[in-house]
């Protein structure tokens, strides 16, 4: 979208790193078993990874923050008890007070209630879009990388096509034909984000498949789909998931930008993007901070948390990482 998604940069290098990490982690576990000196049962690579993740302060704080946000979304509306769509035309654009913690908007609707409602939508869109893009991209990337040859070129050309078509154009036209909706938004964001995941997955596969244990498996006669499932996918998933965190953040920002342009979530449903639209007015931006600061800060906070978690995951999966 208009916010560039740079998640594709962690390509071959980090993929190779991850592969090496997997291998070395395996051997670490084996060594401690062999020595027989450890008191507790040997830790699996995932347990080690989880421990490293949790030791990262940023990741820890972010998980807590994200959990709070999700809690607020799920429980908040019931505690608050205010309908986000309830209008009160006599109390237009009131500052915080009088039963409205964050004041009211142009139509007298409670800003906090709309913020919570918007969180739900924005995170939903972000997660759904990222998940779809990841799933689709991973499948295509793994298939392309492991199949090679014509299939690989064809799939890469398809990726090229998706990267070549200007995304905004497609969003506007599809919105015009089908009418803007959340499902369409998720679909479109995912449609333009999957090529990056595909490239990452493919480069991981390309480097992993040259490794000895994969070559050995092929030599032993294991069928391609089994190799994909048992060896390639486990190597791809961590890398792709890390970029997935960045993807969620990008998806959230894309939704904000599109809703801001009027192409995303349609009122009366609140979303952070369309709440920020009001900030274009001089009056709002200069004298009514309760209308735009909360959604703006919410976007920043959520994105930061998600990226921190992504970083934590990346470092947790790679003990040789130099962070």
């Amino acid at each position: 979208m208009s916010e560039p998604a740079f998640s594709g940069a962690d390509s071959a290098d980090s993929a190779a790193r991850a592969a090496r990490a997997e291998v070395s982690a395996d051997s670490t576990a084996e060594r401690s078993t062999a020595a027989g000196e450890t008191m507790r049962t040997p830790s699996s690579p995932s347990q080690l990874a989880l421990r490293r993740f949790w030791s990262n302060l940023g990741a820890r704080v972010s998980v807590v923050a994200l959990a709070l946000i999700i809690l607020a979304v799920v429980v908040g509306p019931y505690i608050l008890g205010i309908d986000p769509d309830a209008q009160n035309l006599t109390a237009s654009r009131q500052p915080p007070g009088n039963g409205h913690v964050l004041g009211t908007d142009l139509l007298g609707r409670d800003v906090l209630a709309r913020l919570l409602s918007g969180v739900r939508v924005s995170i939903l869109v972000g997660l759904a879009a990222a998940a779809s893009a990841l799933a689709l991209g991973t499948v295509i990337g793994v298939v392309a990388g492991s199949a090679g040859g014509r299939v690989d070129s064809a799939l890469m050309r398809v990726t090229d096509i998706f990267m070549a078509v200007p995304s905004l154009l497609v969003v506007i036209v599809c919105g015009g034909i089908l009418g803007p909706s959340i499902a369409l938004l998720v679909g479109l964001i995912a449609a333009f984000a999957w090529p990056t995941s595909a490239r990452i997955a493919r480069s991981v596969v390309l480097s992993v498949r040259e490794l000895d244990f994969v070559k050995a498996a092929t030599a032993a006669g294991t069928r391609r789909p089994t190799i994909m499932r048992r060896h390639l996918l486990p190597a791809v998933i961590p890398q792709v998931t890390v970029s997935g965190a960045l993807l969620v953040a990008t998806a959230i920002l894309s939704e904000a930008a599109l809703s801001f342009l009027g192409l995303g979530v349609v009122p009366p449903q609140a979303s952070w993007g369309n709440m920020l639209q009001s900030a274009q007015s001089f009056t709002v931006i200069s004298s009514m901070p309760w209308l735009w600061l909360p959604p703006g800060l919410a976007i920043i906070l959520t994105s930061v948390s998600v990226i921190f978690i992504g970083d934590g995951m990346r470092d947790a999966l790679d003990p040789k990482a130099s962070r």
Partner: protein
Amino acid sequence: MTRGTRTVTGALSVAVAGVLALAACSPPPAADGSGSATATGGGSTTNALTIWLQQKPDTGSPLLGGTAGNGQIITPVLDQLVNIAADGTLEPRTAAKWELSSDAKTLTLTLADQKWSDGKPFTADDVLFTLNLYVNPAVKSPIATVLKPIAGYEEVQSGAAKEMSGVKKVDDKTVQISLKTPDVGFMYTLFGATIYILQKDTIGKEDPATVASSPIWVTPGKVPGLGPFTLTAYSAGQRAEFTRNPNFRKPVKFEKLNEVLVTQDVATQQMSSGEMDLTLVAATDVKTVEGMQGVKTVSNEVPGFDRYTINQRKAYLKNPKVRQGILTAIDRAGIISSIYAGAAKPINTSFTSPKVTRDGFNAYAYDPTKAKQLLTEGGWDFNQEFVIREVNNNAQRAAVDQVVLKNLQDIGVKATIKPVDQAQLTDMLTKGDYDALLYGGGIYVADPETNIPMITCANAYPKGANLPNYCNPQVDSLLAQASTTIDEAKRNQILTEAGKLENADVSHLWIAQPTRVYAYSPKITGGIRGGDGMAAALMSVQDWTVK
């Protein structure tokens, strides 16, 4: 890719980006066509005023249907016969005097004593040329129908004649227009239409088949005009620059006028930073603007109004009780106090001219219970979906739609909003694929005859401008009667009767008659009179006093 190759390709692309950026870093194709523009003299800036260009112009052609954007770049350069001010009074422009004969069949125009911007004398020949050009079938101007009542119109349209027999030159400064049948309100429709007087000598040389979309209209120096300025620079999508025309009837008091294309929010912000000298301000920003240092405001009621066209081609919307019910369900007072920030008048009729007396008209005060009752009486099926279409380019209208949506949902109507693109609007209206659509504008305040195109049966869309396809034959006959009634008092009585019927029928869902507020910088010390848009404010530019 190995590191080496990556570095090579990488470095290459950075270099490419850098070179492109530097190459592009020359001054943009300067609006005035020269390589670099000269800065205006350091301190004294009352030399030039910058005003808001409210919409993007495209062809800038006076012969095509006027959009607000095109209108605003035509108005400084070309002039009309007479201007209808926001309050309905007629102001002389290129026609200094006008007189309708006692039998309402002849309109005599006395032209103003002025020269064209290129120095040539302005004569009746130019007026005749202009009117005949608009009607010329090769030009295909949509505005031509305004001139239908003139004798000889059909003959020119069919190709039988080259000029209308009803438009005659009496002498160099007098033009006589003869109508086929008596028509008291004709001059209001004539003056209210966007007919700009064109110079016979220059425009007469253009090919009528291509003149309407010709690039001359946006090319500086090609079009002589009777307006207060001449076009000196035009950059599509950015701005238009004009220079004072010394041959104007009352030359303006400053040298240059710049119209800058930005959004209304940006224009309002620029009042604060000093980059903008005059702009229309959104109702919700008025208080803030009044708080800006040195900035003053002037306001006026618009000659039109904001309303929903409610599609009476649909069977379930044909019953007036249904429309009454829907109107009663809308909290219009609430809309005015919040969305219009109080800067609007309630309205319950399409006849905004004072010639129609509105006491005794039904006010349709907000009453959800009564609304539901009316709907039930009207046979409304509460399982029926009510689709409000919304064009996604106007924040104020979007907010009104939200209120109406909620109001209707609260009384149990299955209302929804379906967005529609500007480019899709005509198709949607033609197919009738909507239940309600909000729009505004119009100049109805001068005389109720100007309402005829929007509410009579014969003008049902797509044949005419009666978008909702409202039809009450009684209203039609009363209006027809009024156009031939010479006695003013009697005419007003007939018009009021028509108004009463229309009010009871709820032809449109009337929302409000907004007040426009213009904000101006300390550079302008007075003289601004507003209207519906920025172009209307330019009608008073000759009276603006600057510091």
